[in-house]
């Protein structure tokens, strides 16, 4: 029997998580340091060098790093180029947005109705809330999908369940019929497109083109200034990113990590070795979708508004761009890519960068940034397939 001959050399002892991923400690340290510095410089908890809006941008960037991590696991480690993870991100945002918007509208409506001589009944409150939220799309009834919006715990569960279930069903269908490679990418893109078209409709119960707004006002904390709330979200985002990093590092290491990387390199051989390839892929796909949903749920209260354009297929492709530029197949690469590209993008398109006058032509960054990004992306794909993260390999090799 094979079992009897098993010895320690055939089955190497499992290395510890940190030994296998030396980047985890570095990352945690840097993330903690970054959070500390931002806290000390912020308006709410420090000397006030960093404005509230910058804190929000940094907090949002941390969320983008988290979704990029998820993308890196599913693409860089498992080889599934999903063009749908930003859709899961948006779904998480919609899930939390429904709760926030409902709760805030309810407070406003109750205040209004309390001015009458007779206290309102629950039905009256419900009707008024529905009319307030859906008046903009010409409806006054609360759609079925808002049934849980009045309960924060249930809606928080939706943040995880909706993207998770969608990913589970979609992934099961796609992987079961062995859709792989570019086909799978296009199929995920189709899913994203269908979702965004669905959200764009006025009568599907999520306010169509208007999206959900006013999400930066957290019900129950309406008296707390935005500078403080933005710090809370910043810390929550940093915590989520830290935990997400740990979770992802755990997933991609050990035997499980080895299997999913083997699936990336040659799916057929892994299958012939007797592994249930579909199960592994489905797990990774669903887990990363859930992480994306959580990231979205933290992102949109900081952004303040979510609309269907956020879920458009292009956003998911940008996600792939970030990960590719940062460096696939290494977790810190995804974080670097997402942070660098999204911050650079908001700096250049936000008018922060000085325009360059060439005499015969004036380079306006808002016009030329996308051209630069596009061409830069081509260059990265062609010449630096390892992305920015590849530089670390270079440095490490030089040291040794």
């Amino acid at each position, binding site marked *: 029997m094979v079992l009897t001959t098993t010895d320690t050399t055939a089955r190497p002892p499992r290395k510890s998580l940190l030994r296998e991923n030396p980047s985890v400690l570095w990352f945690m340290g840097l993330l903690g340091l970054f959070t500390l510095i931002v806290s000390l410089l912020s308006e709410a908890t420090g000397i006030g060098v960093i404005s509230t809006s910058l804190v929000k941008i940094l907090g949002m960037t941390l969320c983008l790093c988290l979704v990029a991590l998820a993308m890196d696991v599913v693409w860089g480690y498992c080889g599934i180029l999903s063009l749908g993870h930003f859709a899961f991100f948006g779904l998480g945002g919609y899930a939390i947005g429904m709760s926030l918007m409902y709760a805030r509208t309810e407070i406003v409506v109750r205040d209004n109705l309390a001015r009458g001589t*007779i206290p309102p009944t629950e039905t009256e409150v419900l009707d008024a809330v529905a009319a307030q939220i859906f008046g903009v799309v010409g409806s006054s009834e609360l759609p079925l999908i808002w049934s849980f919006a009045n309960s924060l715990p249930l809606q928080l569960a939706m943040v995880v369940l909706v993207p998770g279930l969608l990913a589970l069903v979609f992934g099961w269908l796609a992987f079961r019929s062995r859709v792989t490679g570019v*086909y799978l990418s*296009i199929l995920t893109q189709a899913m994203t497109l*269908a979702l965004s078209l669905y959200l764009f409709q006025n009568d599907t119960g999520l306010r169509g083109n208007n999206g959900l707004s006013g999400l930066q006002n957290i019900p129950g904390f309406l008296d707390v200034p935005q500078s403080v709330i933005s710090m809370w979200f910043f810390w929550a985002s940093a915590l989520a990113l830290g935990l997400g990093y740990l979770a992802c590092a755990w997933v991609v290491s050990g035997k499980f990590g080895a299997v999913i990387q083997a699936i990336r390199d040659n799916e057929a051989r892994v299958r012939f070795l007797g592994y249930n390839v579909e199960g592994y892929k489905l797990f990774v796909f669903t887990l990363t979708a859930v992480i994306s949903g959580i990231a979205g749920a933290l992102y949109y209260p900081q952004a303040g508004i979510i609309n269907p354009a956020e879920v458009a297929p292009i956003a998911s492709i940008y996600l*792939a761009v970030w990960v590719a530029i940062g460096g696939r197949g290494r977790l810190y690469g995804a974080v670097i890519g997402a942070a660098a590209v999204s911050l650079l993008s908001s700096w250049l398109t936000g008018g922060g960068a000085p325009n360059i006058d060439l005499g015969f032509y004036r380079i306006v960054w808002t*016009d030329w*940034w996308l*051209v630069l990004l596009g061409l830069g*992306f081509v260059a990265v*794909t062609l010449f630096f397939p390892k992305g920015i993260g590849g530089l670390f390999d270079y440095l490490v090799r030089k040291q040794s």
Partner: protein
Amino acid sequence: MAPVADAQTEAATLQDVLQEVSEIVANPSRAQVPRLLERLSAAELPGTAEFLRAFSEREVVQAADGRFFLSRENADQTLTLIDPDSGEEHGTVGTREVSQIRPNAGVRREINASLVQFELMDPDPARRRAALASAARSPDADQIPAIAAALKAEDNADIRARMERLLDLLNARFATDTAIRVDAIEGLRGDISTEARRVLNQLLQTRADFAQTLPEDANIALIRQPGEDISLIAAYAVLADADLVPPRPGRNAIRDALRANVVDGMVGGIPVHQLDTDERRLAAYRALEDNGTLAPLVTEADMQAAVDQYVFFDAYLEPDQGVTDAAREALDSTRTLIGLFQFASLTLDALSLASIFFLAAIGLAITFGVMRVINMAHGEFIMMGAYTGYVIQTLIPDYTLSLVVALPTAFVVTFAAGVMMERLVIRHLYTRPLETLLATFGISIALQQLAKNIFGTQARPLTAPDWLAGSVAFNDLVSISTLRVGIFFMALAFLLMLLFILNRTRLGLEVRAVTQNPGMAASMGINPGRINMLTFGLGSGIAGVAGVAIGMYAQVTSEMGANYIVQSFMTVVVGGVGSVFGTLAGAGLIGSLQKGIEWFNPTNTLAAQTYMVLFIILFIQFRPKGIIALKGRAAGD
């Protein structure tokens, strides 16, 4: 009458005739006007119809010297006089210098009726057709005798048919005799034109009504059973609107009533702050009802009792039952035919959409099929072609000529761009297909932004030449714009051309060889690099030409390509990679599917697209390789 008849031969101009009966013209009365009309019709002079129209429109004036003119009011309160004979302007006068003739409504009706007759008897068939068309636009009972008279004299078969049809339309609505109307309605049987159906539908209009007993004289369309065809609450509301029963207070009315009766913080013995449920509010209301402050609440039983006393029904506005029965039967007879024509129209739309998808996707299908390369910048080649067309149109003002120039130029431009892209980028990524997807996406966003920088963000017009601007109408139900027909034939031409290139030329042979097995092809002396380059150029070139067509059909913006790219991918994937017929099948399926779904919910194209994408996702489950899958070694991956 006699002296008038005598003068007839001498009258050479309309003015002369008018002068002979100037009394009547100047002071038209209902009794006298037939004489004037008779005289005019006997004279058969040109310009009579125009004069009568002006007469009825109160635009005829009498100058100080007694002569009659048509007039046109100017902005500065003056009148331009027009000679009734020649139609030429005769100078401008102030409104007070001439007497304006104002025939009353009765006179005008007489004039209008005879005007129709004048025009319908006109020797020029084109004018008779025009008169019929204008009569059809404003149907009126007065036209019936004129058309009937004209019909007797008409010898042109086509005009006769039109007259008969118009007469049917008019008789169906306005005739007084049931037999004539039913006869006319019979004549409209099987007529699918909108006018005929409108007339029939008008006859079948109903109004909702109620009475204690079913009235004998009403032409009943439907009796509504309360609780089945009409809800109890709605039926009661109808009665309440007619003040027959007290209105049923809704939730808001109860609240308002309570609000008005707050005494010392209590309503009916219940403290105000407890009134936050419907039950307590109802209890408070009952308490007030018992001491007589408020009118009693209407209960379900009350409503039922009130409603039971009445019959609710829909009655035809048309009282004659024979007519409504005939109209219903006539409408029913066309239903199948209309359904068929609507289906035909839908099929045409689907075909047109499919040809657009085909044009957009076929270039993609070639590159994907031969090189296994996903070209995300394909949409931008479409855009590039459209902008090429736009630029050429600004250089060559003649639309036809510019189109003729634009099509090959767009091909050349995008062919060159495609070859360049293949040489510079894609060639290096053949072993990494997922990364070509990303690299071409990078090119796509760069090109899109470049187009924005050069042409701005607003849509640019790419105007189709006039001969493509109209539409081809088969009947009232089936019509399609000429441009779409043009696009259809263009797609057909591309299909044939591609089939020819792929199956009948040396290049096609080599392309097919490389598609099936690049390694083997290379060892047979084919240079796969060259084939890849040419294929990519060909695919891009076709995208450019498609761009010109799509640009005329939609609008030229920097995002137009992106709008088609996902659909194009769907088309390729659904159809099956590497097959022209597969793409054709995919385009056909997606086009007809989208139109089919739109048919169920025409107002919501977004929903149609959503369901279509969902369908495609499911479709891929069952045929992962598309409708037409390559078999054997070529299918290996």
